[in-house]
């Protein structure tokens, strides 16, 4: 026991810790840098880069670290690269860690909800902005536990540097044991030192997790969470959203009182009949694996017109809407938004994702998704204000003002600082609408905006959309199964079946007196379902 404490306090072993930490830091730092590059290569749209990164991962993960250490130390000098023992060991550890870290990064990047990426694209964010402001903040949060693991493993793996004569803790312990014959005291002492080091990593991980926990907004709350006796509160915090939902939904400031919809349809029609063409779709054709999704589809939408897209599920409504915003590619045909083609350059050249993003922002097409696709790590206000700053380069103060104003307008003034997961579905969709409206789009695409909502929440969202049509005169294309709503708000109804328009006309006419039997059949089913649900 006495010897144990003697070795524990011996400067010789303690200095070994410095080398152990140095190798670990080199390995982790280098591994993180290379891992980022490798993950980027694997996620890139260039196949060759992905293959290259994959090949490297196979080699690096498939050979033992001890051989890599010896390689860096003894083989590199043969080609003229003579590294010091510490450098060689650090390089080997970095080379070895890189593919593991790359997989952690890649997995967590892919783990971020695809819908949020789509929403970012629809808002006109270039890929780098989507990565920086949407994907990275969420991926980093979720990759901390795995990176903590990796750090512990790198620390322990640094002991293999002993084979290339780095004076780290393991090498020093074995040498000391050889010369003193005190195996157990020496190894227990160095074992305890390793334990302290890995314990420090584990503690750092906990601190980071708490600091990045979005559910703990204030520094005090974060500190409190670190106290072991307060850990019990974790569970209730996680199940908070349902509890919040009920009372808040009742306290909606959004007046649901119906605006008298004495819309003079004829007057409206006359108003936009001579107006500019907002969206022109010509002979749009697209197929998935040989199955046609859109067939020679033609559609013109005039500025100020509200078009309801109806039709059975899978009829191509979503694909059509996503095509207008160039979130989908198609096989042939053209789409023009206010005379401008999204996705192709002046001479028909296919634009890069970055250029398409610019074109989207420029064309002024907003989009609202069935599953809201709010940025999960941002508050309601930031969901609206953030994209304004990142895409339209609006100042923070102006963006905040605009976000507050829009959220007030959709009745969410009391929820500016709420995270999406603490809002009900209807509230989330209203935030999403505010976000889509923020850059003043000239066309708003709404892809089944109420289909993912509980029936009692549908009304509040429809009310917001209704006002946009009536009060703002916004051009909108809405795909919906809410026939009553469509009849009430839309000027034009388009019935889509199997990717082709089977009927088109005034919403009133098409939805109450359909000419095409298949439209009639679809409306019949909708009516029965509504009756059954109601």
């Amino acid at each position: 026991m006495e010897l144990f404490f003697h070795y524990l306090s011996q400067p010789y072993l303690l200095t070994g810790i410095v080398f152990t930490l140095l190798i670990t830091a080199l390995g982790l730092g280098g591994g993180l840098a290379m891992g980022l590059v490798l993950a980027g290569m694997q996620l890139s749209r260039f196949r060759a880069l992905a293959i290259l990164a994959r090949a490297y991962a196979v080699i690096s993960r498939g050979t033992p670290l001890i051989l890599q250490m010896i390689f860096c130390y003894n083989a590199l000098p043969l080609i003229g690269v003579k590294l010091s023992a510490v450098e060689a060991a650090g390089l080997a550890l970095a080379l070895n860690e890189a593919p593991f870290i790359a997989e952690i990064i890649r997995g967590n990047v892919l783990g971020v909800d695809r819908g949020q990426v789509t929403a970012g694209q629809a808002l006109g964010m270039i890929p780098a902005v989507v990565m920086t402001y949407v994907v990275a903040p969420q991926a980093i949060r979720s990759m901390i536990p795995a990176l903590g693991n990796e750090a512990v493993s790198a620390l322990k793996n640094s002991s293999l540097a002993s084979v290339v004569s780095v004076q780290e803790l393991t090498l020093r312990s074995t040498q000391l044991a050889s010369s003193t014959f005190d195996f157990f005291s020496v190894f227990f002492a160095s074992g305890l030192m390793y334990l302290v080091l890995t314990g420090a990593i584990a503690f750092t991980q906990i601190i980071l997790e708490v600091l990045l926990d979005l559910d703990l907004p204030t520094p005090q709350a974060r500190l409190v969470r670190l106290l072991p006796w307060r850990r019990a509160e974790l569970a209730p915090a996680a199940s908070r959203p349902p509890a919040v939902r009920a009372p808040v939904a009742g306290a909606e400031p959004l007046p649901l009182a119906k605006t008298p919809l004495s819309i003079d349809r004829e007057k409206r029609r006359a108003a936009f009949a001579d107006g500019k063409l907002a969206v022109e779709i010509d002979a749009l054709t697209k197929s998935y694996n040989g199955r046609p999704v859109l067939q020679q589809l033609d559609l013109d939408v005039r500025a100020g017109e509200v078009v309801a897209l109806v039709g059975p599920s899978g009829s191509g409504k979503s694909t059509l809407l996503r095509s207008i915003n160039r979130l989908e590619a198609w096989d042939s045909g053209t789409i023009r938004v206010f005379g401008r083609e999204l996705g192709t350059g002046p001479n028909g050249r296919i634009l890069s994702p970055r250029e398409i993003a610019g074109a989207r922002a420029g064309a002024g097409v907003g989009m609202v998704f069935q599953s809201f696709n709010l940025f999960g790590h941002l508050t309601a206000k930031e969901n609206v204000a953030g994209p304004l700053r990142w895409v339209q380069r609006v100042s923070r103060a102006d963006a905040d003002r605009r976000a507050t104003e829009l959220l007030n307008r959709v009745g969410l003034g009391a929820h500016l600082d709420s995270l999406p997961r603490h809002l009900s579905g209807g509230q989330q969709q209203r935030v999403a609408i505010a976000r889509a409206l923020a850059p003043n789009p000239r066309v708003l695409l709404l892809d089944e905006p109420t289909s993912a909502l509980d029936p009692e929440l549908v009304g509040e969202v429809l009310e917001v959309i209704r006002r946009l049509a009536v009060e703002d005169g916004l051009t909108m294309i809405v795909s919906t199964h809410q026939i009553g709503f469509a009849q009430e708000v839309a000027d034009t109804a388009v019935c889509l079946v199997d990717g082709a328009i089977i009927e088109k006309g005034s919403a009133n006419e098409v939805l109450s007196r359909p000419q095409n039997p298949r439209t009639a059949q679809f409306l019949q089913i909708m009516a029965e379902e509504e009756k059954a649900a109601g």
Partner: protein
Amino acid sequence: MKIFQSGSRRGSRKARLGAALATQLVIGVLGLAMLSAAPAAAATPAACAALQAKYPSLKGKTLTNGVNPHTPGYEALDPNDPSKYVGFDIDLGEAIGDCLGFTVAYKPVTFAALLTTLEAGQADIVISDIYATKERAKAADFVTYLKVYDGVLVAKGNPKKIDGISESMCGTTAAENTGYVEVPLIQALEAKCKTADKPAPEIQLYDNNANCIQAILAGRADTYVNDVNTVDGAVKAYPDKLEKATAVTLPYSVGIAVPRNKTDFRDAVTAALTEIQKAGLQAELMKKWNLPVDQMEAPKLVLAD
């Protein structure tokens, strides 16, 4: 770290040798003021000055000595000050350095990695109780300095009655280091054991001396055949648990390994070693580390065929 080590190494050497010989012998060590003032350098044989003049490129250099510091008596940490390596091989290397005017730094590696480290240029010289065999000479040139006497380490009471690298080892387990010359000798017993209708000896390979000794202490192995002085050291550390069954002679010598393509350096080391032996310095060092002086051998080269 390297600098610190070699510096304090030198310090211990100074204390050890004392101010024995005349100071005019150090004329050659001009570049190192610290050394020329130190009594330690006084032990450098007179002829070394001439050698330094003959091989001026070594003077003032720091050369790296690759060692497997798990062999107390030859090379191991100083238990009282683990920042230093001590042992006969260490002192001999320092003496050669003093003679030729270079400083020695150390690189600890596993036994099996000694020669690869030298080949990769990560060490300049290897003085680490390594036996100079023809096989190893394919990787490095050797300059010999000791005859080989091996001891047979067994558990107290020699329960398996092992009497050397002989039929008595059939059916037993031997612990050895990866790369040790004893390994093929023990493996060669297989035919003999077969004739006697006994199972062949089993060999467990470790990567340092200490692990081999532990294998016997833990009952995993029955014997460990290695340099007799190492075996004696182990018995001294565990007198109640270990004993030396016998000593055997092997047809090898212990050698200093130098890179194959550097004949100039090899000649310099050979000449320095010769002078050190002539001056009685090697015998003095052997006495200091309790090695029998009759083990000393005049330098001869072991080269690949």
